[in-house]
């Protein structure tokens, strides 16, 4: 009578221990994967604190005397603030214009769908599947004629167009989550479209709008292709600043890493502050 109970208990123990061990294993795997994803950024930060020769040693060194020399050189060679302000202006203004255009578009498609709605949505997102280089030359030539090259407004125009499909899609999916009854109830109460939008739809969708804007700002901030090709100095953004450290001869890794660290720092801090909002928004929208 006793033996089976003991055996059962030890079996229970064993399974509990096995469960614990598996949990521990998963945790370790999780940390390893996280480190793997984080490693390039870590390496960039480490390289930024090295001297040029230390950055180039083989095998690479993890332990070294940290120095701020590369930061000094990076700051001395380019006007960081000028590039940073351009980045800030282009990402904020393009996101502002984008959200002003995307909200009405998403509103119409979410609450008054017609037979064309699915097709329109699909067509919008499919423009994101075309490689940007495909339209580089036409846009470059048009911009040259309109003297929009190296002009911050030209960049803002491209960024708005680039992010608009994503913004419409995200806002559309947030609007879709709002029960149609709420919308109808407001209409029955005699609210016109503007009132429904301002008093009912937008307050509910604010978290979604916020995360859409965050994403658009981050995408515009990190955009390199258009800013490298369409701007030179006047309207150049931080990616141009980073790429400017590339030289045909000589060592530039430490300086470039320092420049990169300076370029990603603002958006990284911003991202950390907005992290909860961002994750919430992304999962909220993904359910549809």
């Amino acid at each position: 009578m006793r033996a089976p109970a003991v055996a059962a208990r030890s079996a229970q123990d064993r399974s509990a221990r096995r469960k614990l061990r598996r949990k521990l294993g998963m945790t370790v795997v999780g940390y390893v994967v996280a480190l793997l994803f984080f490693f390039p950024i870590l390496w960039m930060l480490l390289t930024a604190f090295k001297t040029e020769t230390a950055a180039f040693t083989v095998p690479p060194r993890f332990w070294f005397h940290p120095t701020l020399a590369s930061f000094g050189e990076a700051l001395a060679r380019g006007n960081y603030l000028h590039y940073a302000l351009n980045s800030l202006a282009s990402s904020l203004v393009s996101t502002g214009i984008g959200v002003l255009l995307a909200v009405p578009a998403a509103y119409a498609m979410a609450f008054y769908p017609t037979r064309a709605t699915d097709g329109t949505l699909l067509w919008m997102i499919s423009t994101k599947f075309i490689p940007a280089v495909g339209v580089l030359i036409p846009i470059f030539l048009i911009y040259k004629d309109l003297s929009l090259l190296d002009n911050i407004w030209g960049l803002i125009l491209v960024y708005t167009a680039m992010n608009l499909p994503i913004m419409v899609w995200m806002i559309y999916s947030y609007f879709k989550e709002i029960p149609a009854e709420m919308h109808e109830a407001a209409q029955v109460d005699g609210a016109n479209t503007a009132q429904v939008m301002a008093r009912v739809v937008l307050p509910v969708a604010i978290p979604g709008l916020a995360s859409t804007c965050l994403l658009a700002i981050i995408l515009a901030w990190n955009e390199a292709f258009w800013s490298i090709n369409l701007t030179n100095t006047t309207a150049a953004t931080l990616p141009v600043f980073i790429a400017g450290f590339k030289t045909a001869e000589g060592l530039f890794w430490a300086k470039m890493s320092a420049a990169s660290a300076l370029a990603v720092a603002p958006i990284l801090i911003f991202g950390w502050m907005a992290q909860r909002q961002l994750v919430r928004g992304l999962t909220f929208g993904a359910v549809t």
Partner: protein
Amino acid sequence: MPHLGQTIYVVIMLESIFFLTKFAEIYATTSGGPGLATTNLPYLIFLESFFQYDIGTASTIAIFAVILANIVAIFLVRFVAANLAEGAQA
């Protein structure tokens, strides 16, 4: 895994399209060199148009780049369209 299948499908498709259009990484590190060893289509277009000033050739390559991306995109668009229609019914 069966539930993740769709997501994985979309991620693979999107990533292949994104990697077909990588540009900044190449520009900032190897500049397509040594020779043309690390030049991809977007970078080749960039070289042709802004270094050789051969807009015609560059445009031709650009069309090929778009076609290549569209081959992948067709599957993705079809898939998304099917999902949209499904979502509308549910």
